[in-house]
C-alpha cells in the first residue's frame, strides 16, 4: 500500500523534473544485464568454472598418481600413446596430474587468503567508517603507515623466520591484502552513512536494522564482490611468486608457482613442463581479472563509458 502512495507522491516531482517513463528495474537486475553483455567476462566465467571442475575432479579421473614416477617415461613429450597427455617431468611424473593438484593448492590459497583479507578488511573498514571521528582517523593512519611498507618482503621474512607452513602462507597473504578492502569499505560506509537516502530513510522512521539490511548491505555488497574477484588473482599470484622462489609450499605439496619453477629448470629439454602449468596459471589470472573488471563495470555504471 505504501508503495502506491509513494509513487503518487513522487509523480508531480517527476513531472517537474521531466523524468519520463521510468522503467522498473532494480539496480541488481541492471547490473546482471550489463554483466551478461560483457562477453569477455561471461566467457571468462565459463572458462573459470571449467578449470575449477577440472582441478577438483580431474585428478580422480586420471589414473596416474601425482607422486608416481614412471621410469619408462622420463621427460617424455605430450602424447596419447604413453598415457601422459601433457608429458612427464625429469623423474617421470605426469605433468597434467601434478598441474591439476597444484591448482588445488593455488585455488585454495586464493580462496582462503581472500576470506582472511575479506574478514579483516570489511570489519576494519566498516568500524572505522561507522564510528568516524578520531577512531577513524587513527585507524586509517595505521592503514596508511602499513600501506607504505613493502609487504611482500615481510611475508618472505615471516617464511624465513617461522619456516614454511601452508597455514602461515594463507594467513600472511591474507594479512597483506586487507588494506585495500578496508579503505574501500570505510569510504563507502562513510559516504553511505551521510547519504541523503539514508537520512531520508531515518527521517521516515525506518529502523536501524532495516536501514542496514535494505540500504547499507546491498550498497556495500557490490563493491565487496568486485574486490573479492580482484583480490583472488592477486593472492594466487603472490602464492605462486613465493613458491617460484622456493619460499612457498614445499614438496611433496605443489602449486602452480612451484611447477613453473620446476619447469623453468628443465625448459630446454622439456618445455612442456614449463608451458602446461604456465598456461593454467595465466588463464586463471586472466579470467579472474576479466570477471572482476566486468563486475566492476556492471555494478558501477559511473565508470562505464
Amino acid at each position, binding site marked *: 500500500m505504501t508503495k502506491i502512495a509513494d509513487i503518487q507522491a513522487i509523480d*508531480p516531482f*517527476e*513531472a*517537474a*523534473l*521531466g*523524468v*519520463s*517513463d521510468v522503467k522498473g528495474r532494480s539496480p541488481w537486475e541492471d547490473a546482471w544485464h550489463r554483466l551478461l553483455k560483457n562477453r569477455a567476462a561471461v566467457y571468462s566465467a565459463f572458462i573459470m568454472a571449467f578449470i575449477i571442475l577440472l582441478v577438483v575432479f580431474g585428478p580422480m579421473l586420471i589414473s596416474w598418481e601425482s607422486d608416481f614416477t614412471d621410469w619408462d617415461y622420463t621427460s617424455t613429450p605430450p602424447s596419447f600413446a604413453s598415457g601422459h597427455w601433457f608429458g612427464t617431468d625429469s623423474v617421470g611424473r605426469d605433468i597434467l596430474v601434478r598441474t591439476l593438484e597444484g591448482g588445488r593448492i593455488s585455488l585454495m590459497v586464493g580462496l582462503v587468503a581472500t576470506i582472511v583479507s575479506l574478514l579483516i578488511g570489511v570489519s576494519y573498514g566498516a568500524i572505522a567508517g561507522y564510528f568516524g571521528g578520531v577512531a577513524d582517523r587513527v585507524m586509517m593512519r595505521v592503514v596508511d603507515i602499513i600501506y607504505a611498507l613493502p609487504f611482500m618482503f615481510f611475508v618472505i621474512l615471516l617464511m624465513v623466520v617461522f619456516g614454511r607452513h601452508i597455514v602461515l602462507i594463507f594467513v600472511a597473504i591474507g594479512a597483506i591484502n586487507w588494506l585495500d578492502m578496508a579503505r574501500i569499505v570505510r569510504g563507502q560506509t562513510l559516504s553511505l552513512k551521510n547519504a541523503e537516502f539514508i537520512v531520508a530513510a531515518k527521517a521516515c522512521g525506518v529502523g536501524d536494522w532495516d536501514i542496514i539490511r535494505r540500504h547499507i548491505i546491498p550498497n556495500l555488497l557490490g563493491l565487496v564482490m568486485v574486490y573479492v574477484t580482484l583480490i583472488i588473482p592477486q593472492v594466487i599470484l603472490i602464492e605462486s611468486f613465493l613458491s617460484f622462489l622456493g619460499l612457498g609450499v614445499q614438496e611433496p605439496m605443489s602449486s602452480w608457482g612451484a611447477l613453473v619453477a620446476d619447469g623453468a629448470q628443465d625448459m630446454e629439454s622439456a618445455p612442456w613442463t614449463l608451458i602446461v602449468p604456465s598456461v593454467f596459471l595465466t588463464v586463471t589470472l586472466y579470467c579472474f581479472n576479466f570477471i572482476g573488471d566486468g563486475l566492476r563495470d556492471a555494478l558501477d555504471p559511473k565508470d562505464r563509458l
Partner: protein
Amino acid sequence: MDAPAPLLEVKDLDVGFDTPEGEVHAVNRLNFSIKPGETLALVGESGSGKTQTAMAILGLLAENGHMRGQALFKGQDLLKMTTPELNRYRGSEIAMIFQDPMTSLNPYLRIGKQMVEVVMHHQGRAKADARTRAVEMLRAVRIPDPERCFRQYPHEFSGGMRQRVMVAMGLLCAPDLLIADEPTAALDVTVQVQITHLMSELRKRSNTAIILITHDLGVVAGLCDRVMVMYAGEAVECGSVEQVYYDPKHPYTQGLLDSVPRLDRPEDTDLVAIAGNPPNLLALPEGCKFRDRCPRAFEACREKPPMQLTEDRHAYRCFLGDPK
C-alpha cells in the same frame, strides 16, 4: 520594416541518439532563425531538446548522436562542416556558455591561459596583446582585480565568479552569436540576477545575438526579444516576449505560465502544474505530442497540427485558434 538577413537559420533540424534501447528523438524538424543582435530564448522542460539543438549547431553532440537538416550561419551550413572547418567559427563567431560553471573551466590551467588561448588561436594576436584583451573582458564582466584573476585557478572562485569568467571568455572575440545554455541554473538566486543583468548589459553594448536556453521564464522576460517554446523536440510556439507571455496560444505554453508565480496576477491565483509526463522520446506519439497532457485535446489532435502563423508573426503549433 525590412527585415535584415537572418544571422542563423535552422531548417528542419533533427537530432537523434542511438542508445541500447533504440533511437532517442531529441529534436524533431525544428525551424527557427535569429537576426543579428537579437535575443532569442529557447524555453522548455529538461529533455525538450533545447540543449541538443545548441550542441548540434556547434557540432558538439555526443558520439552516439547524429543530426539532419541545415543550420545556415551567414549562409554557410554548419551541419555540413568538418571539425576543422567548424573550429573557425567556434569561439570566434559563435561562442557558447555552458550550464555548469564549476566544471566547465579546466581546473588545471590558470584562467588567464584559458582565455588567452582563444584570442591567440582565432585572431593570431601576440600573447601580450591577447592578455590585454582578456583582462579587459574580465573587467567588463566586473570581476574585481582582473589582473589577479588572470593568474588564478578556477577552484579559487565561486560559481558566480566562474560564470562571469565564462561570459568574458565567450565574448573575447566579439562573436556575432552567443549561445548560453542555462547560464544561471547552477547558481544561487541572487547570483542569477547578477549574471542576467550582466548579460543584458553586455548585449546592449555589443551587437551580439544571443540564444538563451533556459527553463526559467523570469530570466526570459528580463532579457529576450523573442521566445521559442519547445516540447518533446519540437517548437510549439514562437513569438515576441509580449505575445508569448500575454497571449499564449498553445496550451503547453499556457500551462507553463500558469505553473510560475507572477506579480501581474491576483495574489490568490492558484499555481497549476501540468499533469502527466513528457512523452517517451524513444517512441513519440503520432499527432500532437502534447495531446496526452492537454486539457483541451480533441479528436483532430491525432493528426500533427501544422505551424500556424498570425499576422504579427506569432507562430504556434495547435489546432485551437485555427481559423478553420
